């Protein structure tokens, strides 16, 4: 403990730290940090304006959803499920009772990334950050950032259905798994064999890797990308039937 070396005699440690705190409490961020850590970086989050809707209309933070504090409880089902770990940032006029109430309701519902904007809209304005006027969104939308190289399920399905000639689907599962069924037009190279069989994988096509869950597909993606391939991967569970038909789920 560096502080003790400096002569401090009453140094304690909250060992469980942030994860334990977030299970039972909301945390806080300043307007500057909301701007820098989320809005400017385009990090997906849910921003809630819990003031009365009429008040919110007169000036709100860009991207905010209007949901008056008293209605949060009844709207819990409209939030992304807690397992998605969406950062939810709540603000009111001054970082007061309304925001606290809404934040506590969300923590109680199992959300572990609930934040309260310190000082609310007042502090936001004081920091000279812009406010928007007009109609606020009412629907809570949260789309997590894809992992590098990840392809959306829709894009994958389109490729699997149309099998364009400039794209190759690479099945990186093991042979015993592939025996149960392979997507039409896909090439089977188990993830383990990729480095040895690289020469069989065409360089002039875009490669789309899939496995059964996305784990090995991502590893294959990194191997191929490292060799200069134009490659993407499916990060989802996929079940393939004998006839090549398939189902994807997240």
């Amino acid at each position, binding site marked *: 403990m560096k502080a003790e070396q400096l002569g401090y005699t*009453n*140094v304690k440690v*909250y*060992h469980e730290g942030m994860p334990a*705190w977030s299970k039972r409490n909301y945390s806080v961020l300043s307007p500057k940090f909301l701007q820098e850590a989320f809005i400017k970086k385009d990090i*997906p989050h849910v921003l809630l304006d819990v003031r009365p809707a009429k008040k919110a209309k007169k000036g709100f933070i860009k991207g905010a959803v209007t949901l008056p504090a008293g209605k949060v409880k009844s709207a819990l089902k409209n939030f992304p499920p807690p397992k998605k770990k969406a950062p939810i940032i709540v603000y009111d006029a001054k970082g007061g009772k309304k925001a606290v109430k809404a934040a506590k309701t969300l923590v109680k519902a199992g959300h572990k990334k609930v934040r309260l904007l310190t000082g609310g809209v007042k502090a936001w304005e004081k920091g000279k950050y812009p406010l928007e006027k007009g109609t606020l969104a009412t629907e809570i939308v949260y*789309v997590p950032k*894809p992992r590098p190289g990840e392809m959306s399920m829709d*894009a994958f399905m389109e490729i699997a259905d149309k099998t364009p000639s400039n794209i190759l689907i690479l099945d990186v599962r093991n042979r015993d798994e592939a025996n149960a069924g392979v997507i039409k037009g896909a090439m089977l190279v188990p993830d383990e064999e990729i480095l040895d069989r690289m020469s069989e994988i065409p360089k002039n096509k875009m490669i789309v890797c899939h496995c059964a869950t996305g784990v*090995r597909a991502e590893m294959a993606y990194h191997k191929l990308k490292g060799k200069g391939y134009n490659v993407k991967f499916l990060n989802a569970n996929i079940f393939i039937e004998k006839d090549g038909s398939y189902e994807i789920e997240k």
Partner: protein
Amino acid sequence: MLLRKILTGTLVLFTALGIVTVMPANKAEAKKKPTISKMCLNCHKPAPGSLRGKFDSVAFKSRSIQLKINKSTEIVKFNPETIQVVVAGKTEKAEALRKLKKGKEIRVEYSKKGGVKTASLVSVKPKIKVAAEKLLTTAEIEKLVAKGPKKGKYLLVDARPGPRFKEGALPTAINIPYPAFDKKKGMLPKDKSALIIYYCGGVT
């Protein structure tokens, strides 16, 4: 259902709109890949045959471990029969890899053959031991935070990196990232007997 089982221990992210553009990798960049994460450099140095970074995922079907070192990704092979997995000072079998959480700090000892790294050992960062009388519980912190630093007579210090602190921190906390301690020690109170409470991103 078999497929579901493979999922154990991996975090599945959810797809977003559209397609991500992928830049063709440049070879020089691949050569310069780091072998040790920045965060590990506080206490450790790079060593040949060893990688230090964050655990990402494990695939038993292709006998591979994926780890993240800063922004780059490393994939190492392993033999489930022979690999040693050290958790909390105990050497365990490969199965212990399934229980590892994404983001856990690990050290991988490997040998290289024909451009393929094979891990012989994965060591999970042990918890730092702190004397019991110096530990505070969540309930105790909650009470202090409710009082505020003045009434509660405390200084709450978040030792995590700046970007983590910005994303959300305990109310009333200040941020002194561990590597920046010497630079920022001026933020500590003058009174050496003042209560200072440290926390970070969990038991590390």
